């Protein structure tokens, strides 16, 4: 599955996207646990989950959303447009 990062999460991880095998992870939160182990940057990006939002196949939701069958999961901080 494709995982996307935005804003300071993208900067800490050092990539806007990466191909990931979700393995046993069934929710976005379980995927986060797996991704955090990838590098120090990943750990820093996911250090405070209160500041992390996600979208599964472009549908916004919370970290307990299912990722079963998803082609794309995105992680990003709270939005600040306008």
């Amino acid at each position: 599955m494709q995982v996307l990062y935005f804003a300071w999460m993208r900067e800490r991880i050092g990539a806007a996207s990466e191909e990931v095998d979700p393995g046993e992870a069934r929710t976005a939160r379980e995927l986060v646990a797996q991704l955090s182990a990838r590098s120090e940057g990943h750990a820093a990006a996911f250090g405070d989950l209160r500041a992390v939002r996600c979208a599964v196949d472009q549908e916004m939701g919370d970290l307990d959303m299912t990722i079963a069958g998803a082609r794309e999961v995105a992680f990003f901080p709270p939005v600040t447009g306008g």
Partner: protein
Amino acid sequence: MDGAGPRTTVTVCREDFDIGAEQARLTAGNLEIGAVVGFTGLVREMTGAGAISAMELEHWPGVTEKALEAIAAEAEARWPLAGLRIVHRYGPLAPGDRIVLVLAASRHREAAFEAAAFVMDYLKTRAPFWKKETGPEGGCWVDARDADDAAAARWQDGS
């Protein structure tokens, strides 16, 4: 309002917009419009330690447009609008630059004021944009404001 439904368009772009031209386009040919409310958001320079010299606006291409269209559709469902226009810029911006334009047209002013405020409140909390400001100590991602969450929440009581 005239059977054809409201005239609603969303644009996400790098380029600046022309408020007068946008408003003329929105109201052209519809003589039942009595009120247009426009909101323009601008980059503030701030002062002191928080002074900024530049801003970079990141967004999620494709998804941003869908999010703004969903907000526009929700506004149309809630108020009798004759037209709704949303323009949001991304990329590099400087203090004083325009960031966002929302125009809401209706027969009477109450619907136009409320719809424009609603679109801004939802846009601030639901559209995937992220602001990075450059100040004297380098770049800094803007934190979300609690006030924006509170502003968006006020529209959810009656729905």
